[in-house]
């Protein structure tokens, strides 16, 4: 036991004596949360829009007001003919243009066939679709209000995407937090662990440890302790930042969320050991964790792009990434506030992955220097 503690202490020295390691482990998570939460955001704020409104009646006025009073949009100008619309986009000052039909209110009341067209700049498809979907939601909520006042006689359809149900204010931080959590835990557990074990191999210290009476399993365990501890600290930091800074509350059970994260940390640590048992050099460990683990994790996990819109082949690949299942489960628990029954599938998959990986790496880990 004393052997073990001495060794754990040594690992902490390694971490805190290297400025970059310390920085990556403790500051990076905070920077990432802040950066993704505020900076790299898909949120829209104060986007200018123009209106072409030949009707100028109470309904069109109401719609423009609705858009204008939201925090997302601000009215730039009215245009007097459709020909003025395209030059606006060329200047790039306008996010989108609302084109209202003629005799709007009349048509709305009597035929239920009032037309609105939203024109956005398709050269930036992401922004365009975000803008139009925000605007669509505002429009349908206006329709809803109108229905209330007009006694429910107007036929309409509300088009709302499912994820917005849990993200009423359309904050992108809701999507970002589970993703960042997955990435950070993966980074620290898998990448840092594999690099730290590979370093001992590369420097030759592993040989010295293996020749000592210390059991190989203890060597590995003591390597895991510091990264496990730091993961926990980061987990707490991320939660605190998300609740108090990004204002993303924990809707579900904190205990369940923590248990889920522990499971994921366990999976990531075993991946780290597996990688380190396969490689001899730090740089290889870094590349494998970085290229094969982190990059796909960022792109295929649903953190940045919705998985549903990916090619089928990539969707298959995304299934083997533990981080994907973790992110789904965190969304369910933390954002949607669902209980254990909603994440049984994800928990089972993660547990299965942990079992497979730990078996593989224990088999692969060389107890003797063959």
């Amino acid at each position, binding site marked *: 036991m004393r*052997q073990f503690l*001495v060794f754990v202490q040594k690992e902490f020295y390694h971490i805190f*004596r290297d400025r970059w390691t310390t920085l990556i482990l403790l500051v990076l998570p905070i920077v990432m949360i802040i950066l993704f939460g505020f900076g790299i955001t898909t949120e829209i704020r104060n986007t200018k829009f123009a209106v072409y409104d030949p009707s100028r009646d109470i309904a069109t006025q109401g719609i423009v007001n609705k858009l204008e009073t939201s925090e997302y949009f601000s009215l730039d100008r009215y245009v007097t003919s459709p020909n003025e619309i395209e030059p606006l986009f060329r200047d790039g000052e306008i996010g989108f243009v609302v084109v209202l039909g003629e005799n709007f209110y009349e048509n709305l009341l009597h035929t239920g066939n009032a037309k609105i067209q939203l024109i956005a700049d398709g050269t930036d498809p992401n922004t365009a679709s975000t803008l139009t979907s925000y605007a669509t939601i505002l429009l349908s909520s206006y329709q809803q209000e109108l229905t209330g006042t007009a006694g429910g006689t107007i036929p309409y359809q509300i088009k709302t995407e499912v994820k917005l149900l849990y993200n009423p204010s359309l904050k992108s931080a809701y999507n970002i937090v589970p993703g960042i959590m997955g990435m950070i835990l993966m980074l620290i557990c898998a990448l840092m662990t594999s690099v730290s074990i590979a370093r001992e191999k590369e420097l030759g*210290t592993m040989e010295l*440890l293996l*020749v000592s009476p*210390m059991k190989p399993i203890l060597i590995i365990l003591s390597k895991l302790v510091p990264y496990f501890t730091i993961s926990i600290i980061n987990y707490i930091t991320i939660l605190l930042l998300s609740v108090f800074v990004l204002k993303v509350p924990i809707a579900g059970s904190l205990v369940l969320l923590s248990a889920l994260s522990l499971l994921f940390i366990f999976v990531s640590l075993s991946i780290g050991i597996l990688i380190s048992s396969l490689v001899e050099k730090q740089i290889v460990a870094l590349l494998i964790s970085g290229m094969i683990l982190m990059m796909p994790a960022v792109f295929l996990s649903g953190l940045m792009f919705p998985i549903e819109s990916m090619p089928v082949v990539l969707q298959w690949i995304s299934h083997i990434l533990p981080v994907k299942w973790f992110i789904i489960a965190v969304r369910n628990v933390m954002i949607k506030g669902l209980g254990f029954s909603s994440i049984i599938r994800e928990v089972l998959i993660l547990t299965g992955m942990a079992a497979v990986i730990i078996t593989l790496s224990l088999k692969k880990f060389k107890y003797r220097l*063959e």
Partner: protein
Amino acid sequence: MNVITVENLTKKFGSFTAVDNISFEVGKGEIFGFLGANGAGKTTAMRMLCGLLKPTSGKGIVAGYDIRSESENVKASIGYMSQKFALYEDLKVWENIRLYAGIYGVPEKDIAPKTDELLKELGFETEKETLVKSLPLGWRQKLAFSVSIFHEPKVVFLDEPTGGVDPVTRRQFWEMIYKASDRGITVFVTTHYMDEAEYCNRVSIMVDGRIDALDSPANLKKEFNATSMDEVFRKLARKSKNNEL
């Protein structure tokens, strides 16, 4: 009394025989030189003796324990130092000592006084808090040797301990080896430097996995009609199939 007994020890990697049926004995307190060209099988043989590799066949007893079945006991009774690695560079001098003392189970109360004693002996008192990174190579090697015998092992294995070190420091290093040997610690050392072979009590020379010569330096020189160990080594190495020299 023999501290190391090896009988017909063989290690094969696939069809390649790295160590071919070697036998020898090393007595208590003896300084045993283990020589051979690169690829002659020195490292493989040494790893088997340290319990890092399982022999394909044959028997080896180190410090009274069987290297095949009692490798954990073997590991606890030996010290090990290699040229490739000396100490953890990002740990301080005393932290390195503390780490190895802990790993080898030196009683807690003995560690601090023994550390001070060791540093005094080396003349390193002022460097206790220094990061190993900032010590010169020769100092590190001397410190590493002291660390490897800190737990009073029965045998210490030194794998080219003086590689890259200047002659003066090498000389001091060998004085330390003699001191350890006087205390009854058996020293099993591989080296590239033929002048160092002269310092050993007995020397074995490996060629192609076999031990082709084993005797005191004086006797070997007589046997091979040579004036120096270097010449003995060259005469033997010429017989090698892969003829690296």
